[in-house]
């Protein structure tokens, strides 16, 4: 913790309440992680179906099923994190529109509706054109659904580390990372080399961009605000240092290296390892970034 360094102003808190525990813990991490997969798979499915319509038609059904499963995981963890979970309906009946939580809940509800419409189109109606029509709108709605958590973090005035520009970029990059990783694992060897290369590039570039953002904050964040410096101290020799670097290596550095190796050796196996590493590391990275601002004393 930052404190007065001059002996003359040496100040020590001798009586105050204990620091509060972490309110948003692993449940919210699961929430963000599952949402990244749920929206990311839609982004990637949209990209593949636009660029390779002839070769990727088979992803339509599994992509929407995966998205439905992970968006419901996201909703499940959202609800169970509420201390009064059976009042969840209040968000719809007493909405407060300045809150990112309200906007996010409404967006996510619309997103789920469109996902079921897509599932209906492809599974019951067997209508690919209808599916693709819905997919466009679903992809558009996936953007605010992905971003609203960044808005929520930005509205958390007390947590200086969470700034909207970087958090929104991180959310989109996390969705692209998770979406491409999931698609790589989903596609097996059914994809052509060109598609594999595109997925590898999306995975590698989103990992690189996310890592650059984290490092930018890690190195320069503390130079603008003492609260950020105090927060980052928890990952600069503090109790979350190891976890932070495990996350960075697994989510970003290892996938970048493995993507390069897989492209060079044309090894789909390495790409799958990169995908698994990215998905696991993403959870760890998000968890550290979620928790450390909450360790800071506010009073």
């Amino acid at each position: 913790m930052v404190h007065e360094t001059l002996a003359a102003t040496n100040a020590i808190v001798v009586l105050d309440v204990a620091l509060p525990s972490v309110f948003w813990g692993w449940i919210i991490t699961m929430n963000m992680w599952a949402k990244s997969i749920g929206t990311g798979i839609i982004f990637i499915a949209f990209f593949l179906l636009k660029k390779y319509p002839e070769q990727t038609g088979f992803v339509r059904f599994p992509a929407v099923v995966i998205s439905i499963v992970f968006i419901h995981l996201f909703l499940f963890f959202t609800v169970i994190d509420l201390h009064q979970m059976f009042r969840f309906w209040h968000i719809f009946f007493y909405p407060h529109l300045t809150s990112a939580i309200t906007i996010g809940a409404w967006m996510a509800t619309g997103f789920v509706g469109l996902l079921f419409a897509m599932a209906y189109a492809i599974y019951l109606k067997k209508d690919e054109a209808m599916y693709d029509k819905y997919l466009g709108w679903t992809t558009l709605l996936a953007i605010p659904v992905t971003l609203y958590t960044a808005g929520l973090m930005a509205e958390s005035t007390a947590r200086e580390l969470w700034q909207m520009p970087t958090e929104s970029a991180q959310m989109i990059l996390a969705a692209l990372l998770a979406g491409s990783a999931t698609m790589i694992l989903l596609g097996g060897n059914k994809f052509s080399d060109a598609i594999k290369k595109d997925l590898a590039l999306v995975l590698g570039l989103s990992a690189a961009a996310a890592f650059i953002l984290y490092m930018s904050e890690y190195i320069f964040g503390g130079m603008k605000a003492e609260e950020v410096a105090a927060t980052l101290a928890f990952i600069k020799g503090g109790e979350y240092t190891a976890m932070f670097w495990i996350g960075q290596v697994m989510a970003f550095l290892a996938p970048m290296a493995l993507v390069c190796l897989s492209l060079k050796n044309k090894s789909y196996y390495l790409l799958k390892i990169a995908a698994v590493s990215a998905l696991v590391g993403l959870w760890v990275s998000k968890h550290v970034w979620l928790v450390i601002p909450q360790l800071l004393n506010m009073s």
Partner: protein
Amino acid sequence: MQLGFLVDLHLCMGCKGCEIACKVENEVPLSTWRLRVKYVDVGTFPETKRTFTPLRCNHCANAPCERICPVSALHYLENGIVNIDKERCIGCAGCVMACPYGAIYIDPQTQTADKCTYCAHRVASAMMPSCVVACPVQANIFGDLDDPTSDISKYIQQHQGNVQVRKPEKGTDPHHFYVGGGNVTLNPLASFRGEGHNLFNNLKHIPLGGHH
């Protein structure tokens, strides 16, 4: 009307009478506080002094808790108080994340957010907040900031240049002021928190032969 609060830290002697009065009046559960007094020791022995800082909700004009609340459980009253409707609260803890003053907690009994309301129920009955009544040295001054003849307005006028708010850089426009405050009392990062040196910390971490 815009109700506000001022604490003259020159007068506060850390008796915690306000803390107890608040606990009793609002039935605040164990392990939680709407109002508490922080003690900070400043200096190096023998040149030391102890400061006392009562901390409570700042009832900001631009309240982050009100903005982030998804169901308007946190809302403004006409007199400027940021009040909470515990029947509406869903316990998302967004307000806990948003409040830069650490003034909001989750009530372990109701599982909803809770905080100081300036005793809105007492104010509605033309009574002073319980902490104001309990203070033996009248360090707590409560009143209408829109009224230039109110005690709080006069106090602020008399102490021009020595009236502070906590974390003004957050842009929350607090309606809770301090006279005689400083970096040590108002900035949480300006003082060191040693593990085991706080009354409510885990006492097993106090080293043998410690400072007590």
